[in-house]
């Protein structure tokens, strides 16, 4: 099944840096591909928040504060651990079924919730990239990403 949605272009969001990136002297800011999303649990919907679009993440992850605010009892979910590309400590994550609200779409997903997430949310392959074609587009200023909702076979 092909695309059933429409294209939406979303500019990257700029963030400051405490000090320039090593190897890129003079770069005092950078950008993240982010989109505004909300999550739904039963009849409760979160406020909109910025989520990082990250194909390197297997799953969609959310800060625990957001889950608790919409009524999730976090520790009743299946527990897993969360690690990054740099070795060292891992964090606890609890998985729950919620709905992800992206633009005009509401998508059921399995989501991880962690107290230790450094950002509000990360949108990963399962739950997000399997529902959207994502094009990282450097051709404009500011650069951005293009989202296209796709159907499932």
């Amino acid at each position, binding site marked *: 099944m092909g695309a059933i949605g429409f294209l939406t272009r979303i*500019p990257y969001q700029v963030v400051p840096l405490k*000090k320039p990136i090593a190897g890129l002297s003079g770069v005092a*800011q950078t950008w993240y591909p982010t989109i*505004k999303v909300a999550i739904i649990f039963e009849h409760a919907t979160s*406020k909109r928040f*910025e989520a*990082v679009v990250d194909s390197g993440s297997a799953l969609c992850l959310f*800060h625990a504060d957001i889950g608790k605010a919409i009524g999730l009892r976090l520790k009743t979910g299946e527990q897993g651990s969360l690690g990054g590309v740099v070795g060292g400590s891992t964090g606890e994550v609890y998985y729950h079924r919620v709905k992800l609200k992206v633009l005009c779409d509401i998508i059921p997903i399995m989501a991880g919730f962690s107290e230790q997430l*450094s*950002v509000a949310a990360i949108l990963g392959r399962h739950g997000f990239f399997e529902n959207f074609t994502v094009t990282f587009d450097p051709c404009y200023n500011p650069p951005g990403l293009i989202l296209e909702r796709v159907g499932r076979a």
Partner: protein
Amino acid sequence: MGVGRRAGEYMLAEERLRILRDAAPNSWIALSEDEGRLVAAAATYEEVVMLAAKEGVEDPVLIKTPDEWVPLVF
């Protein structure tokens, strides 16, 4: 498909940078519905939502700041 930023739809990058630089680490900030201004900042999601509502902003856009503004690898 929209291209670029429409006037008033997104906060100016410079203003956004200033707000994020000034925000406390590991905190939540709330922007107005049109993302044009900072309306609240707090340590937790629930607190920032409550403060935004007190300012009359019922549908804020929330951002969580990291412990430190370093290049993040997710």
